[in-house]
């Protein structure tokens, strides 16, 4: 039974990580119908910013908590700035172009950012400092769930609740929902659609940066290509749950994470991707819009 819980927690940890990235995909898709392929790279940039900032701060000998807070702040702000800029440069000029153009632009952005970091840093793996402390009270359970897993789960849950509340109850959230439903109508009722889209990118990127920081300190290393696989997996999770739907992205991420963990645990890790993607295909056969996605009629 212990084994089951160990796998459950490893699945939940993975799921939380996917969720933090998947939210960015799903929010952007929900609002402008674009798959932002550069999102995985924003996650990677968040992790790199965290690495640089925390290394610099630790030279000054600040206490761990201060380093953590400042690093989180810097990483989210910096990644959000990247997200904002990417949207401004690569997507906004193509707002009224055919749907394929922004998609290609997104792929281009992804390749650009990855190579930019490759040139600015190295292609080598860099050690990432352990920003999350090992809690003494977790020691008896360390074999089942570590301190970092606990933090990842908690932070992911908090972020999701915060995001849901923002979208449900604030004016910005309301405006986001309106923009998602119908951009033209939203414009007509006086919503600054461009600003709302920018805000969406900023929120999505900040979440990805937090994800990047958490995972990097969980596995202790980063390089310029970590965004690729994480991005693909999170995108899969978003599609699984119904792209465009926020609870869907969270649900999809947990299903994907748990499937992978249990497939590894009870069958073989050789097949974890086989199980994950077979599940995706199955779900899309029976629910083409994903688990919680709304089937929309394509307006031609």
């Amino acid at each position, binding site marked *: 039974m212990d*084994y089951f819980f*160990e*796998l459950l*927690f*490893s*699945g939940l*940890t*993975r799921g939380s*990580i*996917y969720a933090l990235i998947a939210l960015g995909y799903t929010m952007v898709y929900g609002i402008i119908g674009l798959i932002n392929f550069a999102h995985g790279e924003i996650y990677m940039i968040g992790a790199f910013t965290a690495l640089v900032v925390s290394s610099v701060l630790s030279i000054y000998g600040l206490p761990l908590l201060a380093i953590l807070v400042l690093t989180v702040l810097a990483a989210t702000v910096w990644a959000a700035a990247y997200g904002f800029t990417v949207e401004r440069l690569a997507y906004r000029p193509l707002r009224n172009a055919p749907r394929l153009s922004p998609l290609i632009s997104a792929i281009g952005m992804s390749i650009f950012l990855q190579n930019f970091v490759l040139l600015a840093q190295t292609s*080598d*793996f*860099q*050690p990432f400092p352990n920003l999350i402390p090992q809690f003494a009270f977790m020691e008896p359970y*360390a*074999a089942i769930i*570590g301190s*970092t*897993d606990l933090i990842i789960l908690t932070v992911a849950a908090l972020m999701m609740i915060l995001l849901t509340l923002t979208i449900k109850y604030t004016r910005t959230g309301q405006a986001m929902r309106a923009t998602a439903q119908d951009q033209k109508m939203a414009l007509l009722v006086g919503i600054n659609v461009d600003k709302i889209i920018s805000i969406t990118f900023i929120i999505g990127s900040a979440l990805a940066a937090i994800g990047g920081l958490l*995972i990097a300190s*969980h*596995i*202790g*290393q980063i*390089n310029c*290509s*970590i965004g*690729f*696989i*994480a991005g693909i*997996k999170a995108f899969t999770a978003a599609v699984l749950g119904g792209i465009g739907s926020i609870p869907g992205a969270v649900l999809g991420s947990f299903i994907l994470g748990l499937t*992978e*963990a*249990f497939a*590894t*645990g009870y069958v*073989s*890790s*050789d097949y*974890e*991707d086989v199980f994950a993607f077979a599940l995706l295909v199955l779900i899309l056969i029976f629910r083409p819009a994903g688990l919680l996605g709304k089937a929309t009629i394509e307006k031609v």
Partner: protein
Amino acid sequence: MKFKNTCFILTTLALSLAVCLATGALAVEPIKIGVAGAHSGDLASYGLPTLKAAQLVVKDINEKGGINGAPIELIVGDDACKPEIASNTATKLVSAGVKAVIGHICSGATKAALPIYRDAKVLLISPSATTPSLTQSGEYPNFYRTIAADDAQARTEVDFTINILKVQKIAVIHDKGDYGKGLAEFARTFIEQSGKARVVLFEGVTPGAVDYSAVVQKIKHSGAEAVIFGGYHPEASKIVGQMRQKRMTTLFVSDDGVKDDTFIRVAGKDAEGVYATGPADVSKNPIALEYREKFKKTESADPGAFFDNAVAATLALANALAKAESIDQETMAKVLHNDKVATPFGAIQFDAKGEPIGIEFSIYQVQNGQYVQVR
């Protein structure tokens, strides 16, 4: 009449003696040695340093008077690392009358060329072809190499884990890549053959995944006392890190993909105690230093991967040529098997299959943030 005949015979004898003496005195017929490998194409960077190595060694030998008075002449054959070209190259070298060949470089090309050399009874020493079947199939008694075969590393790991660490339950993990999985499969076979230990888990992990805790839990659950990992350092450091996070003290044994300082830098204190196999350190060997120095005099770059191996191959061949009573495959083979020759790797000779004895993998352990050779 009788006298005349005798006289004739005597004259002929004298004449032939004179001819004999003449050839004996001149003795300029050079010994032809082929150097085959990738000297052009994508993999020329592997082949060219080995050619250079052969040239440097042969130059030294010829300056010292050659092999029993006869100079060595190198005949170069390019196979561009392609099997279909390699068989042509082999035919060309054989018809040029080579007695032995240094090469080829790539295993595939070597395999394609070997039957031609075998039928012509030409001896072959490769500095870089590592496919195990080249020697182990027993089909090519004319084949030798001065590099450890692909499975030698797995054998070193397994022998060390079973006999020195005295471990009975082993988990074999790999990264699903050609290198990692190939190594892991050899390791599994050797563990099963040994009969002293059991493979309790054999699994591949996906490189680049965000988290390996599920497979780490599985290792724990399997009761393995040691993990043998086939793959590279990024996955190794993640797996070791997560094992230590879960407070597992399981031993970790890996390969030369992990014997890299980046591994220690990234894994930090979790790297402590990790074992990894790697080629023995030759940087202090005088022969290695001498030839590397000579190489750098003429070339701007570093000697590259198989330079030392090619120096070793040429030295071993020269020794065989010098000590064999006649220059043919069987007599030279006897020398290769029985006589130790000084090379950049120390004194080496060859076992019955043609594998080098003396060019082996060493075991290193991370101690205080450094790889230290333990065996």
